[in-house]
């Protein structure tokens, strides 16, 4: 019996299902592009209004961030974000990196199996919880006691809270980077008679440096974008003067947006108050976007080298 073309073509119903599934799944994948477009669109429209109508002196040369009074000093927020991020990284980089080195280089598998979930649980704790912990414990027991802060709410407290949130991220990305260093490098080092610490510090860490840099940049980006801890513990509500002291209350870009959106049904105030929210959002979006792009460059470099 000869095989006809009809036999090879297959059951038309199966072919139809196959095509329908393909179209549906493609649409699902395309949704993500639509979301990106919507984010840019949401930010761009009101930001454009702000940028074209604002008097730039109120953005760069006013005394502080008081959107309801028409003072939009962006430096106040940028410096606030920088302080919180710096404090956070001072905590998170050594602790996160140390944990990663221990888990990847020193811990036996059985120990690792117990300790790794600790970091994962820490990673799963919502940021509002850290915000509460920051003002109920970190502030009175640590910042006020050892640094002599007078305010219960201040940028340093917020920074420490954000730092704790960033530890698991740094630890997990760094650990991935360290574990992707080939075993042969370590063996070569031991073969030369190097100790464990020499091998770790002089061979493994330099070999993983791209991944470690990526971990750092990702953590910075995450810390800049973190809202709730600063909103709860940062202390400044509707506005703040320009301030570079971490022991004083202050606002970050994120906290400024959140404060501006609370309490009122529609964000109202001076002429451009509403639009300033979007302007800050755009600045925040651009900064974190650039950091993420740089970080993914570094991650790709790790993948290519080994």
């Amino acid at each position, binding site marked *: 019996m000869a095989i006809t073309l009809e036999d090879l073509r297959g059951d038309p119903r199966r*072919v139809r*299902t*196959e095509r329908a599934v393909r179209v549906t*799944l493609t649409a*699902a*994948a395309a*949704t*993500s592009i639509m*979301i*990106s477009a919507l*984010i840019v669109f*949401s*930010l761009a*429209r009101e930001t454009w209004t702000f940028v074209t109508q604002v008097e730039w002196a109120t953005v760069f040369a006013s005394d502080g961030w008081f959107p309801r009074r028409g003072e939009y000093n962006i430096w106040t927020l940028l410096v606030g974000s920088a302080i919180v991020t710096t404090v956070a990284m001072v905590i998170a980089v*050594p602790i996160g990196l*140390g*944990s990663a080195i*221990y888990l990847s280089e020193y811990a036996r598998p059985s120990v690792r*199996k117990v*300790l790794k979930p*600790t970091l*994962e*649980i820490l990673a*799963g*704790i*919502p*940021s*509002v*919880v*850290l*915000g*509460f*912990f920051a003002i*109920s*414990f970190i502030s009175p027991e640590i910042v006020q006691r050892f640094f002599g802060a007078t305010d219960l709410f201040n940028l340093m407290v917020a920074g420490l809270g954000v730092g704790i949130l960033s530890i*698991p991220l740094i*630890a997990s990305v760094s650990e991935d980077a360290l574990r992707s260093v080939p075993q042969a490098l370590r063996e070569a080092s031991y073969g030369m008679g190097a*100790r*464990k*610490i020499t091998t770790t510090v002089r061979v493994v860490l330099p070999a993983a440096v791209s991944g470690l840099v990526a971990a750092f940049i990702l953590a910075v980006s995450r810390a*800049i*974008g973190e*809202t*709730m801890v600063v*909103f709860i513990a940062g202390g400044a509500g509707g506005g703040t003067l320009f301030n570079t002291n971490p022991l004083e209350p202050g606002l970050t870009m*994120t906290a400024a*947006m*959140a404060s501006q*959106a*609370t*309490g009122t*049904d*529609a964000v109202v105030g001076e002429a451009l108050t509403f639009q300033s*929210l*979007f302007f800050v*959002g755009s600045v*925040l979006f651009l900064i*974190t*976007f650039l950091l993420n*792009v740089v970080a993914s460059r570094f991650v790709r470099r790790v993948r290519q080298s080994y």
Partner: protein
Amino acid sequence: MALTTPATVGPRAAERSVADQLTKGGADWLGGTFLVLLIASLGFCVLVLVTLMVDVIGTSAPVFSERFVDFMTGTLRTRADEAGLYQGLVGSFWICVFVVVLAFPLGIGAALYLEEYAPDTRFSRFVNVNIRNLAGVPSIVYGILGFTIFTKALRSFTSTGRANGLTVMSAGLTLAILVLPIVIITASEAVRAVPDSLREAGYGVGATRWEVIRSHVLPYAAPGIITGLILSLARALGEAAPLILVGATTGRLAGDPSLLDLGQLRERFTALPIVVTEWAKNPNEGFDELAAAAIVVMLVIVVIANTAAILLRNRYEKKRT
């Protein structure tokens, strides 16, 4: 210098003797200090977790011992001894429903497309980069998206007249979008881990791509996918920043509908993390305890979810390797 091994005193002593000759008898102080520092940094994480738990549970104790039922079923009030969590629980429940119904199927679908249908086309590479960027967008920026699109542009759809677009539906849609990249990334990883031999066996007996996915790829990848789903649900549950922008209520909330009343989807709402924020910021007597108690409830849910995810993963990892 020759290394000598005394043969008569057993392997342990031999090892020590060789080590002594290599290190010339000196202890590795530097290495020891380094190791202590590493252990201390992990110890710090454990310490933070324990302190946090003790702090929160200790602060919340009076609320749970004196008025547990009242607290779980009460509504938002300005008096600390009357306020309760119920409206927050209802809001968070519905937000999770939106995430499950929208983000889960969309995310798994997109992951299947990226991994099974178009692993390396220009379109899928673009989508991949795009998803990774979306995952790094700060959550409050998603709040701006939700505010502009769901609260303003689609107001007539997401809300009744008096709610002004600030509804559970807006919040649920926003958070579904927020966790979508996480769902896609974790599902993609799970699907990528399915061995090719399984697929080839399917194609070998004449199955179509979808038939292979449905009967081989998805069942094999299921534990990994489900782990990702649980983690993203936990994330949605704890996320507060976007909800502030889509107008979660922080003061009093008028209605007190039952849990499954669909009409409330288009009314004003609040959610667990918002309630926590509000109480934590409230300087009046008694609200600290309330915030801590709400956190305990939230943590119990999140930690159960995370533990389930970790256990699920460990169990299946063990089985397969």
